[in-house]
């Protein structure tokens, strides 16, 4: 049995090289635009990790990135491309927000697990629909998950503006009623350590989810089946592992990870659901999974990296006066290089022992 984290350490060269390459190239852009790259990156680093408070804020951003990254990664492992982490996250958030606000007076010991379950299940059902459409009707999951991303946005407009979830006296942004105190994820950093930190228990849930991801894929029969379908669909099929059933299951699991991210955003951060809430995780999630090579440790590290870019970039703009678009450029370059991995491999083959097997 191969170890997932092992897999990543066996070949971390390519992700690391591509990040370095992207940073150097990004620095070049800064230099061309008349700034000092060293100052820029120093500001970025300071922004992301400069103080305990900065670190706790960076971790806060990393949580949804990690969970949606796991969502994309688990589907990848079974050979499916989940573009729908964003939509699944929103469904999870809506489900959690609804449960949390519906019974606000329940004690935490009951309400928190209920909210958690609602978030996970909401995402799982939404993801599972895409899996089912693929299995039963052969509809490409890329198309369905993209459509689902739009669908939930419009459903949320309706729910929060004039629909059943609209808060009775909400002004400005349409939003739901706040969740009960029992549904709130507590802040886990004491004030004397990091004053006014917002870092909540969702971080622990995300780490737990990472362990679950590893355990599922490499320690359970189901995980074995998912990987077999992803790496050799026809071999799996003739051995009696029905790929169609596994497609539904894995998309539901993927949706569950994303739904958990949505629940955490609601329970840990916003304490209600806003319209236009937590947008834009979907594509970052794909980047996180790709850079992390769909391996647990890899996804954790790349979620941290992207979170640092995100937080550091904002600060870099205010401190060093360099457009935070630089960060987007670097992110794009990272992706570009990862996508060009095949090229890198081809070059590596010329130098060393080939990876490809020949009979």
């Amino acid at each position: 049995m191969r170890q997932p984290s092992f897999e990543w350490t066996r070949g971390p060269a390519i992700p690391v090289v591509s990040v370095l390459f992207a940073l150097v190239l990004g620095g070049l852009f800064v230099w061309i635009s008349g700034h000092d790259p060293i100052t820029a990156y120093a500001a970025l680093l300071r922004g992301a990790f400069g103080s305990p408070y900065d670190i706790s804020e960076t971790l806060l951003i990393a949580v949804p990135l990690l969970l949606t990254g796991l969502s994309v990664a688990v589907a990848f492992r079974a050979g499916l491309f989940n573009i729908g982490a964003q939509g699944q996250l929103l469904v999870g958030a809506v489900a959690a927000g609804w449960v949390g606000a519906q019974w606000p007076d329940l004690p935490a010991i009951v309400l928190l697990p209920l909210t958690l379950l609602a978030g996970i299940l909401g995402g799982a059902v939404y993801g599972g629909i895409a899996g089912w459409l693929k299995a039963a009707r052969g509809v490409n999951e890329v198309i369905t998950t993209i459509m689902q991303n739009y669908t939930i946005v419009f459903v949320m407009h309706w729910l929060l503006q004039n629909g059943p979830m609209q808060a009775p006296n909400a002004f400005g942004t349409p939003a739901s009623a706040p969740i009960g105190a029992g549904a709130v994820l507590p802040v886990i950093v004491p004030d004397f350590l990091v004053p006014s930190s917002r870092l909540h228990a969702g971080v622990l849930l995300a780490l737990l989810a990472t362990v679950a991801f590893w355990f599922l894929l490499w320690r359970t029969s189901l995980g074995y089946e998912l990987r077999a379908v992803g790496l050799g669909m026809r071999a799996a099929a003739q051995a009696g592992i029905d790929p169609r059933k596994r497609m539904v299951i894995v998309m539901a699991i993927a949706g569950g990870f994303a739904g958990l991210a949505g629940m955490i955003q609601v329970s840990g951060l916003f304490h209600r659901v806003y319209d236009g809430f937590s947008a834009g995780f979907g594509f970052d999630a794909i980047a996180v999974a790709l850079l992390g090579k769909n391996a647990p440790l890899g996804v954790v590290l790349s979620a941290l990296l992207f979170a640092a870019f995100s937080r550091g970039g904002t600060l870099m703009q205010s401190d060093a006066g360099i457009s935070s678009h630089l960060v987007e450029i670097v992110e794009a370059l990272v992706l570009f290089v990862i996508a060009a991995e095949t090229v890198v491999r081809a070059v590596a083959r010329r130098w060393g022992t080939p990876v490809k097997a020949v009979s």
Partner: protein
Amino acid sequence: MALETPIVEMRGISKRFGELQALADVDLTVHRGDIHALVGENGAGKTTLMNILYGLYRADAGTTRIRGNEARIAGPRDAIHLGIGMIHQHFMLVPPLTVAENVVLGDERGGPLLDRRGIEARVSELEARFGIRADPSAKIEDVPFGVQQRVEILKVLYRGSEILIFDEPTAVLTPQEVDDLFQIVRTLRGEGKTVILITHKLREVMAVSDHVTVLREGRNAAQLVTTRTTPAQIAVAMVGRELREIAARSGTPGDVVLEVSGLTAPSDRGGPALKGIDLGVRAGEIVGLAGVGGNGQSELAQCILGLRDASAGVIRVGGVDVAHDDPHRTRRRGVAYVPEDRRVEGLVLPFSVAENFILGKQDRAPYARRGILRADAIRREGARLATEFDVRPADPDIEVGSLSGGNQQKVVLGRELSESPKLIVANQPTRGLDIAATEYVHERLLDQRSRGCAILLISSELDEIRDLSDRIAVMFEGRILAVLPASEATEDRLGLLMAGHVEAVGERSGTSPA
């Protein structure tokens, strides 16, 4: 003659893959205008040596001289430049394009525009010169394996190759196609081309080659002149010991285990693949299914397993109708299956040897308990099976994709033959296996038969079918033309039936299913 500079001279070639010394100080000398056989057991390093010559791998040590000049071959481009061409075992053709288009594809001399007529004329010219028959305007997807291989040969010749490497070219061919191929190879020799031929079949070595190089465990074991050696001598050099003869045993058939009647099924490209198949296999009996590849044998196997939907008919295993079962349920009823294409259907190539051994058993004791995998049990069983089926290297953690072709096949067989199935459907079980491994698999199949297992053996090797089967069914264009007792199935008669001549059935034997 002996003083002439060899066209290929490899000296002291070594190659390591991690821990494994695939080649150690190997020499290979090939003379111009020769047919040179390269033989050795599975994993001996034949493909690796040829990949080095063709520039796909780089040797760790050693030199290669071509026509007396030291050559640095860094990639296939350099090899092609030196007049070296390789016909891979897995064809690299574009199915929707025509024969002629495939031949010129990727050639740098052609302009950006395809001149259809001109190309077809040039391809026809090549065909005439080397006695290769293939309709230049036919689409690749419509022609059989044997013709596809000829297209690969034409491709290589079109690039002006002088040295042609064939890696196990006969493994996927029917006996007739093998004869045709050897005729082509002899013509090539007549035209002054040099041929290096990898094969596991000593009969073929004796029939066409001039010289033989034998590799054993990555080292030179012998360099022989074909006319001055015997198959036994080559075999000893390959294996390092004398081979046993399998004692022909015959089964004692019991109850009918597999019963197929009136089975009709569509093919992948529309149209019927099976047109009313009636066939029975009893416990303790091997029924051989002979026929030119592509006459419905694989589709029949897939229907039995539940991988393909039948449009009509009944399939019973042990009396239960399984025609509408999926592979999971069929296998649960005690059906084992050796698929035809090990790389696509048989194995998950990026998985380890141990992981592949449990494919399909991943949710069962002792490999799992309540859905949790038991890594130690999986590894232990992996190590045991790897040793038992002589997978080399016998390392359960190695990636299956990095094993040699024959060793990959052993992993499939280890998985399918290690339990006690009621029925085994084996499609080309010894394709790509060396002599010793083939012998081992035959023995395992015979053991299973003595145990009372029913076996449907699909093979394009007539010898294999005739040696093992109690009865032989011949398939032609989706029908079973005849079922003969093994004693009546002479090679001539099978050959005629395989070509669709029903007259050859004869008086005494009927076509009854069981």
